[in-house]
């Protein structure tokens, strides 16, 4: 009951200028400056509303009727929002509105802009309320975080989190491939010598354990924890969570690597016979099969942003594939030796590759440009990216985790851990700070603080969902299965205006009609009464309109010109900046 009392005294006895008592949610004065900047409210508007509110209150006081008590709202108006937060939910830029737009279209566009802005703000406001914060690991002064051992971390954190660091000693059938479900609750292990086990790894409950009595190349969960695919020596098999064989798919032979596209219900497989095949698991049909003619395909990953499959090849190239095109969409020469591993981040912006030339390279996959190149003395055999952008790389029997590989040049790893036996599979657990490592001596679950996304979306992937919720989610997900034809490099392509078709149709229409129905109509001056339609006045009006048109045209050309000039200037600037860098040949210049 303390706080209301305090406020009351503050208001009644002290003059208006006195500050209200400091509250815990207000900024502490000794906090860093950049943080202050971050939470700076959106400009002006709030202040204005505050003013307006004050004015209104004063008016109310004058009436002496509506206003009840003298206390004013300490937080008037909507809660302030930081710019970054709003930016996070931005979908597209505001549409440019040409001057002579049709009034109806202008109205529609204005309204849709307003709606999207409002939704953006609301989403940002909701973002403040998210319950969980991401994990972190900080060393003391002159202590490297990479020297902190897993045991120390497991001891330092709470008990439930501590149990997430564990080793499974499975030396008999190793090395192991690893996969987590989309919710991160279930773990699938596939031993090279035929051992397949699925585990609810948080409760350590073993769901099934089988030995397929054949070599296992890869294992992958399908859309839910009820089914998984196993690429065995000859064929591709699908088992359910009790270990019962559901299908043996003879169309898919010698599969080495698999990827599951969860929103398309597609299982993409890469085989030793250089075939890339897509299986629609919802209807059980092969959607596409391509012979890549690139030899054995044992490096594969998917871009979670646009469902493009990336394949790495022994000649150092990485190729991008969609089920709609027989040829590779893109071929990139990434390494001088063969490519050992490829991975793409969640937003589809960065691709990280490692090759036999012992290099680790980061690419901007939207622009197909190299960003960073690192030299790892031992070379990385497996790569995996976490939801929050931590990169784990396996070099021999050491697992290293890097932070911010694409923004700042990295000199040392964020974390490192040595496992027994060489690493065979790496997978970050979604929504957890856990990295699963499959190696020659079994499986290790590592704690990597800051790896997982702290707040999940209950309608998309809910680790705590009940059986009923899972069933409902399954129905919904199947209903909105995206057709494989919609896979393309730009996943938002479907939302753009189809100008090409429009132009084609317009041309056809002009041809059919014999005139252009959308052509600007010739201006016919209205007849006006009271002598205002004299020949001179009519001519004047006509001239006015003609001038207006001309001005529009001139404005447009001037704008174009300005743009061109700006571009050339910038180009020149860049050139100058480049030439300012000293080259070895500069000393010969006079």
């Amino acid at each position, binding site marked *: 009951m303390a706080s209301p009392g305090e406020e009351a005294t503050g208001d009644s006895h002290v003059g208006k200028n006195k500050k209200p008592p400091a509250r815990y949610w207000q900024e502490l004065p000794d906090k860093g400056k950049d943080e202050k900047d971050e939470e700076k409210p959106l400009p002006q508007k709030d202040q204005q509303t505050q003013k307006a509110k004050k004015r209104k209150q004063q008016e109310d006081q004058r009436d002496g009727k509506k206003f009840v008590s003298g206390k004013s709202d300490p937080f008037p108006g909507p809660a302030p929002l930081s710019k970054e937060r709003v930016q*996070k*939910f931005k*979908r597209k830029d505001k549409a440019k509105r040409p001057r002579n737009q049709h009034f109806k279209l202008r109205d529609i566009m204005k309204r849709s802009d307003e709606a999207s802005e409002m939704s953006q703000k609301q*989403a940002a406001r*909701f*973002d403040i309320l998210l*319950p*969980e*914060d*991401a*994990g*972190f*690991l*900080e*060393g*003391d002064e002159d*202590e490297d975080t990479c020297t*902190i051992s897993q045991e120390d*971390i497991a001891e*330092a*954190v*709470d008990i439930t*989190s501590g149990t*997430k660091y564990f080793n499974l000693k499975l030396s008999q059938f190793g090395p192991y491939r690893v996969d987590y479900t989309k919710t991160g609750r279930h773990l699938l292990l596939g031993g090279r010598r035929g051992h397949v086990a699925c585990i609810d790894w948080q409760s350590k409950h073993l769901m099934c354990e089988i030995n397929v009595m054949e070599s296992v190349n890869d294992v992958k969960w399908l859309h839910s924890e009820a089914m998984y695919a196993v690429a065995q020596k000859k064929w591709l098999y699908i088992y359910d969570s009790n270990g019962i064989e559901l299908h043996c798919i003879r169309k898919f032979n010698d599969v080495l690597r698999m990827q599951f596209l969860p*929103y398309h219900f597609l299982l993409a497989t890469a085989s030793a016979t250089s075939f890339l095949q897509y299986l629609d698991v919802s209807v059980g049909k092969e959607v596409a099969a391509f012979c890549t003619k690139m030899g054995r395909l044992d490096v594969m990953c998917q871009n*979670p942003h*646009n*469902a493009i499959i990336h394949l790495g090849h022994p000649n150092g190239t990485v190729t991008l594939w969609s089920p709609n095109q027989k040829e590779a969409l893109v071929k990139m020469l990434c390494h001088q030796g063969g490519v050992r591993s490829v991975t793409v981040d*969640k*937003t*589809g912006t960065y691709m990280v590759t490692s090759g036999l030339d012992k290099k680790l390279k980061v690419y901007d996959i939207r622009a197909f440009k190299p960003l960073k190149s690192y030299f790892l003395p031992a070379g990385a055999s497996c790569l995996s990216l976490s939801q929050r952008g931590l990169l784990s790389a396996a070099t021999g029997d050491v697992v290293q985790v890097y932070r911010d590989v694409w923004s700042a040049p990295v000199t040392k790893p964020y974390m490192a851990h040595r496992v027994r036996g060489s690493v065979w599979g790496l997978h970050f657990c979604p*929504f*957890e*700070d856990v990295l699963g490592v499959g190696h020659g001596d079994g499986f290790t679950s590592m704690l990597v*603080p800051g790896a*997982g*996304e702290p*707040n*999940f*979306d*209950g*309608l*998309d992937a*809910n*680790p*705590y969902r*009940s059986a*009923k919720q899972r069933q409902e989610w399954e129905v919904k997900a199947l*209903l*909105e299965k*995206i057709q494989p034809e*919609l896979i393309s490099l730009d*996943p*938002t*392509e*479907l*939302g753009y205006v189809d100008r090409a078709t429009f132009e084609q149709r317009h041309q056809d229409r002009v041809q059919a*009609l*014999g*005139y252009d129905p959308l052509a600007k109509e010739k201006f016919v001056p209205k007849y006006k009464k009271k002598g205002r339609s004299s020949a001179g006045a009519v001519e004047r009006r006509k001239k006015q309109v003609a001038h207006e048109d001309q001005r529009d045209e001139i404005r447009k050309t001037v704008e174009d010109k300005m743009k061109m000039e700006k571009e050339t200037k910038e180009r020149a600037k860049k050139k100058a900046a480049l030439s300012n860098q000293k080259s070895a040949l500069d000393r010969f210049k006079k």
Partner: protein
Amino acid sequence: MKVKVLSRNPDDYVRETKLDIQRVPRNYDPSLHPFEVSREYTRALNATKLERVFAKPFLASLDGHRDGVNCMAKHTKSLSTLLSGSCDGEVKMWNLTKHECVRTLQAHEGFVRGMVVRYCGTSFFTVGDDKTIKQWKMEAPGYGEAEEPLNTILGKTVFTGLDHHQKEAVFATCGQQVDIWDEQRSSPIRSFTWGVDSFSSVRFNPVETELLASCASDRSIVLYDMRESAPLKKVIMTMRSNTLCWNPMEAYHFTCANEDYNLYTYDMRNLDRPFMVHMDHVSAVLDVDYSPTGREFVSASFDKTIRIFQNDGGHSREVYHTKRMQHVICVKWSADNKYILSGSDEMNIRLWKANAAEKLGVLAPREKQAINYNQKLKEKFQHHPQVRRIAHHRHLPKNIYHQTKELRIMKEARKRKERNVRKHSRPGTVSVVSEKEKHVVTVVK
């Protein structure tokens, strides 16, 4: 060493007891929801398909008339009451919720030509082929009382239609001239003629209540002001209009149902060219009625279908037909914007949903939300070819389908000829006449 690892308390994410609803924590971060556009597109496609699956517009058929239904009138105060008059002079009052006839009266000898409920809802007027105007009480006569009109006016000529003023005790009839009547008098207080021998329909403007419009048999639509002695102006078209209806929201617009298979929406301030031409019927259009929102209207046609048009759309968004429905003579849009009533030649009145896929009855909030969301999605992706194909597809009876095709071919041929003429004549001599201008002959003031 400072360390924090994600550790969630399951109690925050799982419901406490089985009686609670499940907790669904949300995170709207776009990076957690990839393929936004494609998924929405898929949802829109599904919503469109489901809409077609659930499109069952026909609700009930009210039978009881012993001849074709010639006119209908909505009750001004009660949603569930409908009046209908048939070609044998019988008037029936219907309870729409129970789908039953509550009262029958023999009003005229010969056709009941027109019918209107007084603005207060206590009585209604009918006109018939027997040259009489009769006013009837809304309540049925008590036990033992005879069914008698409140008031009967004997006219000189046959009346073909009538409409009542919105607020005053004044009504208008049309026949050989347009008459304005005071309810208290037995002779018209004003008569309008403009060299025309007969009118087919007359309507009061719902907002500017002193204004009237009527359709005449000389292919014209005439506008009147009740306070003046002469008509205001008229527009003459290429073919005759059967009926017209004012837009209740934008009351300067009216739509007329024409014999040339089209409907024309005019702005009464500018009759030189219609504001919009609505095509799709394949036979003469007999009746038209606006929805109370003024955004849509329904039309009844001789081609045995009724169609729903947007007030600013050139083509219909919906077509209703059944195997048994014959030429549709009259049509009404109910005052709650939910139902459509059509009266046709084969003695039946049919009750339709205005929105074919709408679910009737009380909706749960989640249902409502889902419907709104789907509606928005359909709107957003309506121009995608796949979605549009499904949304626009309607099954049509064979003869209408073929007739539509035939009409299209004829129209194309006419266009081609026009184009060829233009191509082979001196530039500028053959002007381009738009579809809107084609049907207006002249405007007389």
